[in-house]
């Protein structure tokens, strides 16, 4: 009665959850096949409920022997906040993957992995793969304040150097991830490869820091997706003046070729709708809000 039932109802069961930061939750989900097939940089598309939206989430880690994958979810709107209400024993309605092209992993030499907020979770599997490929991996993991710096211990386990940064100086380096990156570039030793994952303005800023130095830089883009299989074209991004579908051609692209303005604009397409749905969610959940009076 335990375990996955092909075609049955016990699919995609949540095996463990943990709150990592306010509105940021770790999930371990039963998905034996995805666990066996996935590579660093790939994602899944999930629907939390039978009427829900399809949203992409990066696979943070997996265990092919025990048949699970893990996700880290930041509650930013209705779907992610609904997901974050689920607990061990619950299931997500649909889970499709692995999707997207795996991150390109080579032996570059000294590689810097930059994660902003929940972007650290997305960058983490790539850091692991880079380390396994024999790179000297340095990570810069940023957050607004101390509680938003994620996965520091996990990063320390695979990186030779880890630099937490906070915007308010409450922990680690006081400043943006790009300030720390500029310092590392200035101080040497030389950097051969950079991968940055986080909010669009952060990734754009990283691209501008490395561009004059000609450092090979990759960003993992987060456009709005629907199917995740190349069928709708909603996830299109412009890279080197060519239109690409992020779900099948990416999500990783050459940072120096990406049109970030376009990505930022397209990501705002539904802000009015999202705002309304999010408010609605907040109203419906006010009584269980863990930070409310209790």
């Amino acid at each position, binding site marked *: 009665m335990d375990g996955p039932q092909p075609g049955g109802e016990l699919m995609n069961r949540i095996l463990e959850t943990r709150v990592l930061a306010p509105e940021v939750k770790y999930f371990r989900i039963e998905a034996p096949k995805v666990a066996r*097939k996935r590579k660093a940089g790939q994602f899944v598309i999930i629907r939390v409920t039978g009427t829900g939206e399809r949203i992409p989430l990066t696979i943070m880690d997996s265990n092919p022997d025990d048949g699970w994958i893990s996700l880290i979810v930041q509650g930013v709107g209705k779907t992610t906040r609904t997901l974050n209400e689920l607990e061990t024993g619950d299931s997500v309605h649909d889970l*499709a993957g692995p999707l997207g092209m795996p991150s390109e992993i080579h032996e570059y030499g000294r590689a810097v992995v930059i994660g902003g907020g929940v972007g650290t979770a997305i960058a983490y599997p790539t850091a692991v793969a880079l380390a396994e490929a024999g790179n000297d991996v340095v990570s810069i993991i940023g957050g607004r304040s101390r509680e938003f710096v994620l996965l520091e211990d996990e990063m320390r386990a695979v990186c030779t150097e880890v630099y937490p940064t906070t915007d308010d100086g409450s922990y680690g380096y006081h400043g943006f991830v790009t300030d720390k990156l500029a310092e590392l570039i200035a101080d040497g030793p030389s950097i051969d490869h950079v991968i940055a994952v986080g909010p669009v303005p952060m990734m754009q800023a990283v691209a501008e820091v490395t561009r004059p130095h000609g450092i090979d830089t990759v960003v993992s883009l987060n456009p709005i997706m*629907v199917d995740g299989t*190349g069928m*709708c074209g909603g996830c299109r991004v412009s890279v080197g003046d060519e*239109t690409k579908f992020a779900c*099948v051609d990416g999500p990783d692209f050459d940072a120096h070729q990406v049109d970030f303005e376009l990505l930022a*604009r397209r990501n705002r397409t539904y802000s009015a*709708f999202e705002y309304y749905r999010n408010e609605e969610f907040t109203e419906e959940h006010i009584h269980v809000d863990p930070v409310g009076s209790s």
Partner: protein
Amino acid sequence: MARELTRRERLKIPRHEMPEQDAHDRSVNFEEVNLGLTAEQAVAEAERCLLCANPTCIDGCPVGIDIREFVRLVADEQFGDAADVIKRDNFLPAVCGRVCPQEDQCEGACVLVKKYKPVAIGHLERFVADYERERAGSTSVKTITKTGKRVAVVGSGPAGLACAADLIQAGHDVTVFEALHELGGVLVYGIPEFRLPKEIVKAEVDQLADLGVRFEMNAVIGMIDTIDELLAEEGYDAVFIGVGAGLPRFLGVPGENLVGVYSANEFLTRINLMRSYAPDAETPLLDLYRKTVAVFGGGNTAMDAVRTARRLGADPATIFYRRSDAEMPARAEEVHHARAEGIGFETLVSPIELLGNEDGWLTGARFQRMELGEPDDSGRRRPQPIPGDEFEVPIDVAVVAIGNEPNPLIHRTAPDLEQTAWGTIVADPETGRTAKKAVFAGGDIVTGGATVILAMGAGRRAAASIKEYLDTGVW
């Protein structure tokens, strides 16, 4: 039973036109436009058939349904028997009766087409299928001797479903792998509810499940398993690829990535598959109410997109097509319905640039006026620009519906499948065999965007040769 009618009497009966929902009412709802014939209407319509000794109509049906026989049975009010006759050749009659381009197929080949109006074969097929579904319930499941052979069907569109239906009845174990969370392919994510209610597709799929077909949704083949892995690791003896032509083509003009420009696939998927028209929908869509919506293209997909936009309040909702009315590939019925619903048509125009504001939102388009030149190789008159004749139109939301190409996902992980320059898979049209042993293909992935019935036919032919291959082991 009715008295045998004379030929003259038959020719006197006027064709029964399909009862429709009022054009104004339906332009604001998603309920089916065509209401279906009543039993009386169906019998009277069937009596128009001359029961030809040489029924040319059958040659016009890509799967060769014995039209004369099923129509005769309708005239005799033996609706259940009529359904059996249709089901011998067509596994999805309720679907085909609704969406086949009958004017080019069966009805176009009916002898009555020249001097009278053709027998309404599509409407009768739909009537019989609906009657069967509503009255008789599920067909009794015969016991089938299992062969122990396993077949993987990739894609749950009409090609895959038809292939699965024949194989399960031949005693093979069949698993259908579908990338999305719902089954039916274009029938659920493309063709809108008001033309093909989802419940009808579901009923057909449920029948297959009752017969023992296994369905795995959320299984993107090429990613979760490659074709080779299905054969070598998962133990399938043969694979049928029916993944359709699902990669949207864009215009290749400046401004195409502005906010407010959708591919028809995205637009229709958000609405049909994700039901973003429902009040409690969680998948968003740009607000179309009283917005100026432009759809580029002139095929079925364009008509579906523009009529859907209309139902969501678009005003005006306009088709912009680069050839003339006569070349429009959409079914006549769809164009007729669209006009009645207040859709505007601008023909012989081609968008050359999409215009936006400083925030990156679409505001309009610049068009080039075209004229028709000499017929090209395909016999269609090619549109060519009239130099200097350009104009701008304000637009809030645009939908690009100029066709689809095959999705390269499968091919990326199975390079030994032979492919054409257009990305379609090379497969024998009679047997569906590909260049790869034990792998068959059919439907839009082989032909490029075609029709439901052609995809179904291809699925059935492939099923027949899969059976042969599994019986003989000879490739």
